[in-house]
């Protein structure tokens, strides 16, 4: 039986928009469904940038060569059954704060290649990988459908690369009323973990 532990990686930055309400809704929806949820405000966590050295694959397999909080976050990520990538929608993708944690999570997959539907990807290191939910936050609606689709695509590409068994996303605006924002997140959660 799948463990129900979720980790919200909150990529809020000093440039905004604030992700607090969306994160609270995501946590609430998951708890209502019996999940334990941890939330990590990444701006408060010192994580050095990935060096691109591949040491985590060929020197210290499975562990980043940089000894800082990035190791602990990568460990928490792979031990979770669901990751929520909560981010100020940044050009349709992730904020730098969220991305600093994601970049440091590549020790959780193997360097070895395999073909997935004719495309080259890396093999899995662990037998189980977390599901992926993306929640993008913008300051003011309406949500641009192209950006919404871009986040969906990015999450789906990450799901392939991190071997996530399911994935989905939504974008909410800070100007949305509580009910609309909550409903959008609830629908996205349902798509990823089932209703």
């Amino acid at each position, binding site marked *: 039986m799948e*463990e129900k532990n979720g980790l919200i990686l909150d990529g809020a*930055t000093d*440039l905004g928009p604030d992700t607090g309400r969306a994160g609270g809704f995501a946590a609430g929806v998951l708890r209502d469904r019996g999940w334990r949820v941890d939330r990590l405000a990444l701006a408060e966590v010192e994580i050095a*940038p*990935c*060096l*691109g050295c*591949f040491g985590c*694959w*060929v*020197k*210290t*397999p*499975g*562990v980043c060569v940089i000894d800082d909080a990035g190791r602990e976050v*990568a*460990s928490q990520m*792979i*031990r979770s059954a669901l990751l929520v990538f909560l981010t100020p929608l*940044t*050009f*349709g*993708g*992730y*904020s*730098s*704060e969220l*991305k*600093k944690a*994601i*970049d440091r*999570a*590549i020790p*959780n997959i*193997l*360097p*070895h*290649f*395999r*073909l997935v539907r*004719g*495309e*080259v*990807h890396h093999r899995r*290191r*662990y037998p*189980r990988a977390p599901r992926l939910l993306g929640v993008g936050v913008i300051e003011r609606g309406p949500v641009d459908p192209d*950006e919404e689709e*871009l986040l969906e*695509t*990015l999450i789906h*590409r*990450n799901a392939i*690369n991190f071997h996530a068994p399911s994935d989905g996303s939504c974008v909410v605006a800070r100007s949305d009323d509580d009910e609309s924002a909550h409903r959008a997140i609830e629908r996205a959660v349902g798509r990823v973990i089932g209703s």
Partner: protein
Amino acid sequence: MTEAGERVLLLVGSPKGLEKSNSARLGRLLLGELEKRGWKSEAIQLHESVRSEIGLPALFEAIDRAAVVVLASPLYVDSLPAPTIRAMERIAAHRVAAADAMRLPRLVTLINCGFLEARQNDTCQAILRRFAERARFEWAGGVSIGAAGPATKRTRRALDLLAESIDLELLIPNEVESMTRKPIMPPWLYVLGGNIMWKRWAAKNGAKERLRDRPYARTDR
């Protein structure tokens, strides 16, 4: 043809910097072709720009001087490395706040990924296109390269054509894309060769037997 002495700025998004990275090497090949056509050039590593207080103002000023900005970066997990995104966030905030006085430089992006298929850069290129719109650049186009961006004869020819189109202020010809998107080998061979390379690399570090370790495995599931 562009005005004599126009300036091109290379922004390198790799943590490996201006000397050692494939991104910088590809970017410099393009700059070399533009210099032959009379362009002046300068290069900045974005990781350095976001690391210091003086880095960002210098970056903003360099962008203001440029007629063309080339962003050359590796693909990191379907997007850009975190410090590169940080630089983009700050560039956009700065350029939106000071919009009236600014020229719109053209933005060309050169993205390389470690997978065989150049198309795996497409999501990243879509993000960069959004960045161009938000940060007040004129989107000139993105060039995607697979297989970690080897400077093959075909890639060099593509960069030459790209330089010509930048110089003549033309759209990037389809020929550039068809050259850079053509895989350099069959996928099965890339997988086979890549896996041999990883094992040899780990063996050099005495880590071959530990390649598949699971240091964060839970014992309760």
